[in-house]
């Protein structure tokens, strides 16, 4: 092969590999969901079931779509006017209010047709105990009650169906129906509750923007029509809109500042745009290859992988800067740049790949994706440097190695002097870190990863207080071979929860549709009541009720079909009740909740465990647990990876030098953890990812310095890489979003410590000799 052909072969290989990766990825890409934003997909597949998936998606969707607005004023009419204005504004923004009267006639008609199938537990017990006298007593009481109506006698003698309906769970206990709204009076103020739901298709960013726009329009409309009115609004979509808005603003200015800084740095040092273009090419190819590899493996890229995978940039840029520094200012021939840096680059790549490859063993989709992304990305960035840079950078540019640029080398020489400070400074830092370690605390709660505006949080709290709602920590999933079995299991569950949590409100389909077996028991109860009409007439006459009423009542009983209400009929009359039912293939389950302020997840899990086929699902708790497990596994796997890397370094550099090379990154890690403890920053999965970056970068610095210890260009390359990483990731420390702030702070402290401690990897006499 000619030299020219060999020269052309390298970029060809690079292009072919990247193109093939992208092509395969395009074929495998899930076009409906290229970027997976569902945090629940982080859960290991073995822990998921199709029914659980469907139930979680259903409840999550309902939660995300709900919007609650409360308009209040001291004067009732003004408050109502304000509520009407808000209603009109919401409708104009594409969010019509839920109409409480919708389909209720059909539903009530259905209940009336099957009225004998519905009894409250108390009524059933009373009627079973003494059928004739209990019924007579109830009819007499109904006639005497000043709140009873005569018309009800024909459709619901004794008021049994009315009591069943009134015993149904209330959505907003403190509010009562008031025309198109729900209203309440409290502390001399009138409150109107408006409930809207985002359309199914409007979840995500679009829905959040629509919700925020609709609420802003409603707020303006209320202010116009009723200046004395106050509007409170809450809903997951509003929180989502606030988070997206904040993230967008932060990403813009953080990216702008860091990019500007890196461009200026490159121009100042190299007086050329070529390093900038090649640097972007190297890192860009790495990210593209990483994303493509993940898509090939998984069909889509999880948002967490994208966020954490970008830490790859911090490591990949090291390769480029090492090459540039050697090429521009190295002591050897320009044609030999690659030869000079290749050992350092290769060792950096191998150790980096080993560290990330260990995450493949984690068993969590998120960590597996991060590992695949990082390994593929690192290899591609390395390949870009090795295959393309020598072709793009042939001649050494005539740029003076200014005194300022030699500062890193001087710092290195200074740090490598054999003085007691080389031991004292790290020792002092370690001593200072120890109290910080003791103050370290972990946090895996998903809620703590987010930062929301205070007014929004206050409004949410106020609305929840007004509604008297405490959001339950999760839901019951009641599986059954068919809907009747599931309904029976739910009834058993509610009996257990009623005893365990007095005052709690159980919410599930069986409250609206008792199982057919229970309905049959109710029908049998009525059959007992009407078994002896003569006895009933005597009882009526005895108490003072006209005995002929019994004839009409008996006729009503005889003409009734005496059949239980079926789930098909109920769900056809009110499809919204179908929200309680989830299906996956041939499997079926019901979703139920318990509104009990004092219940805890273990208590609810315990209640669920008492009924076959029932489980309690706490999505947030599951995510928190998963984050905790991911954090633990990632930590241990990185430790295991480090042990393997140590063996590799021992093979390459010997035991003594290896210990010296591992010492700075571990010192940086110790100092970073100490600083985080002092600053009271909780350690979460994102901090761990930051620490993995710190370890990777710190290891690169020591390997580079060890391999190129005699070159001042190496010191410059390491310095530039550290500066670039600091201003790209370290900038995140200034973010107001807790998760980015914690990650940025860990990276900022860690990279700084890694850079400053890197000279410790070189034996002092070596530098002096140099």
């Amino acid at each position, binding site marked *: 092969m000619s030299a020219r052909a060999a020269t052309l072969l390298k970029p060809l290989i690079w292009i072919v590999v990247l193109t093939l990766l992208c092509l395969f990825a395009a074929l495998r890409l899930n076009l409906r969901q290229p970027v997976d934003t569902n945090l629940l997909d982080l859960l290991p597949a073995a822990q998921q079931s199709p029914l659980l998936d469907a139930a979680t998606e259903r409840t999550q969707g*309902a939660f995300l779509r709900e919007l609650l607005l409360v308009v209040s004023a001291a004067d*009732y009419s003004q408050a109502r006017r304000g509520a009407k204005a808000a209603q009109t504004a919401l409708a104009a923004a594409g969010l019509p209010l*839920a109409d409480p009267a919708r389909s209720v006639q059909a539903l009530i008609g259905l209940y009336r047709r099957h009225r004998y199938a519905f009894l409250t537990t108390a009524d059933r017990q009373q009627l079973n105990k003494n059928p004739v006298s209990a019924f007579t007593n109830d009819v007499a009481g109904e006639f005497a009650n000043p709140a009873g*109506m005569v*018309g009800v006698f024909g459709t619901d003698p004794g008021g049994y169906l009315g009591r069943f309906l*009134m*015993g*149904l769970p209330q959505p907003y206990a403190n509010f009562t129906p008031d025309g198109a709204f729900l209203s309440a009076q409290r502390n001399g103020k009138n409150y109107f509750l408006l409930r809207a739901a985002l359309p199914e298709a409007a979840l995500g960013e679009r829905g959040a923007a629509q919700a925020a726009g609709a609420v802003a329009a409603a707020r303006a409309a209320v202010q116009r029509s009723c200046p004395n009115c106050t509007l409170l609004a809450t809903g997951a979509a509003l929180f989502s809109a606030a988070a997206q808005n904040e993230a967008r603003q932060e990403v813009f200015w953080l990216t702008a500042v860091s990019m500007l800084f890196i461009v200026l740095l490159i121009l100042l040092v190299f007086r050329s745009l070529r390093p900038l273009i090649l640097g972007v090419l190297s890192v860009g190819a790495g990210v593209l290859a990483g994303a493509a590899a993940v898509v090939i493996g998984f069909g889509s890229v999880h948002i967490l992988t994208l966020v954490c995978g970008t830490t790859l940039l911090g490591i990949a840029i090291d390769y480029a800067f090492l090459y540039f520094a050697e090429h521009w200012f190295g002591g050897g021939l320009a044609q030999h740049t690659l030869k000079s840096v290749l050992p350092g680059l290769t060792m950096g790549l191998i150790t980096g790949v080993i560290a990330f490859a260990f995450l493949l063993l984690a068993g969590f989709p998120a960590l597996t994706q991060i590992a695949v992304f990082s390994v593929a990305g690192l290899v591609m960035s390395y390949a870009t440097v090795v295959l393309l840079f020598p072709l793009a950078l042939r001649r050494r540019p005539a740029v003076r190695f200014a005194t300022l640029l030699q500062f890193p080398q001087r710092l290195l020489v200074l740090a490598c002097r054999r003085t007691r400070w080389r031991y004292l400074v790290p020792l002092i830092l370690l001593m200072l870190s120890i109290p910080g370690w003791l103050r370290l605390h972990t946090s895996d709660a998903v809620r703590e990863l987010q930062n929301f505006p205070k007014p929004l949080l206050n409004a949410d709290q106020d609305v929840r207080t007004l509604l008297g709602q405490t959001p339950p920590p999760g839901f019951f999933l009641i599986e059954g071979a068919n809907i009747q079995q599931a309904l029976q299991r739910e009834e058993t569950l509610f009996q257990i929860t009623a005893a365990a949590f007095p005052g709690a409100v159980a*919410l599930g389909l069986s409250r609206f549709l008792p199982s057919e077996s229970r309905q049959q028991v109710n029908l049998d109860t009525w059959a007992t009541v009407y078994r002896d009409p003569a006895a009933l007439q005597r009882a009526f006459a005895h108490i003072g009720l006209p005995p002929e009423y019994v004839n009409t009542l008996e006729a009503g009983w005889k003409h009734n079909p005496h059949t239980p209400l079926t789930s098909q009929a109920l769900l056809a009359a009110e499809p919204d009740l179908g*929200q309680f039912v989830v299906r996956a293939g041939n499997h079926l389950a019901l979703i139920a909740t318990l509104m009990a302020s004092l219940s805890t997840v273990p208590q609810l899990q315990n209640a669920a465990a008492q009924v076959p086929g029932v489980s309690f699902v706490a999505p947030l708790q599951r995510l928190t647990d998963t984050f905790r497990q991911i954090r633990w596994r990632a930590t241990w796997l990185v430790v295991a990876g480090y042990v393997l890397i140590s063996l590799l370094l021992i093979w390459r550099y010997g035991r003594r030098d290896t210990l010296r090379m591992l010492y700075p990154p571990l010192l940086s890690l110790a100092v970073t953890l100490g600083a985080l403890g002092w600053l009271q920053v909780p350690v979460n999965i994102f901090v761990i990812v930051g620490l993995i970056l710190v370890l990777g970068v710190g290891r690169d610095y020591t390997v580079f310095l060890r391999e190129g210890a005699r070159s001042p260009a190496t010191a410059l390359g390491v310095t530039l890489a550290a500066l670039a990483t600091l201003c790209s990731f370290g900038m995140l420390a200034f973010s107001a979003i807790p998760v980015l702030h914690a990650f940025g702070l860990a990276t900022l402290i860690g990279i700084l410590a890694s850079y400053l401690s890197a000279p410790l990897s070189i034996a002092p006499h070596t530098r002096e000799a140099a």
Partner: protein
Amino acid sequence: MSRMQPTAACVYAAILLLAAAFPAAAATGAAATLPKAPESFRARFIETRTLPGFDQPLVSRGNVTFSRTRGVIWEVTAPYHYVFRMGPADAEEQMPDGSVRHLDAEHAPWLAVVRHIFTSALTGNISELRRYFHVQVTVLRVGRRIELTPKPGPMAKAINHISVTEAGTPRSLRMDEASGGRIVIRFLDAKAAAETP
């Protein structure tokens, strides 16, 4: 499910709305008889309930005691004994067999509506009554007649019309239900009383 689903919530509210309409509307009849009522009063009453499809009406007698601050006691003495008590926070009824059925506002949301209409009627708060009814007041030779027609909505589906006459204390009430049923109450010996329930 982190909280009640909005779609399902509509259904509960709707059912409660209709369920609540019966007692709320009916109680309005008892309450609206007393516009600008005294602080407290006591009266006897004769109530005639005519059921659609029945020739024989049901007649009951009893006493009603009202206190603006403490609520109302509605006691039927014939043909059987029954007591309905509604206080500021809750209500209970003593059934003919002596058993007591307790109703608290938390589990009977209509109670709040009943109490609201009741208080509005007794304090002569016509604007509050207009939330639920078209109100027409006719001045009679002695006292007034108040005509209440429910505004369109669930209440209008249950009640056609309520007519109340009063002369300082309530004199009579007539409620025509949409079902064709009718309740007529005559108040006798009504007088302001220092004694309250």
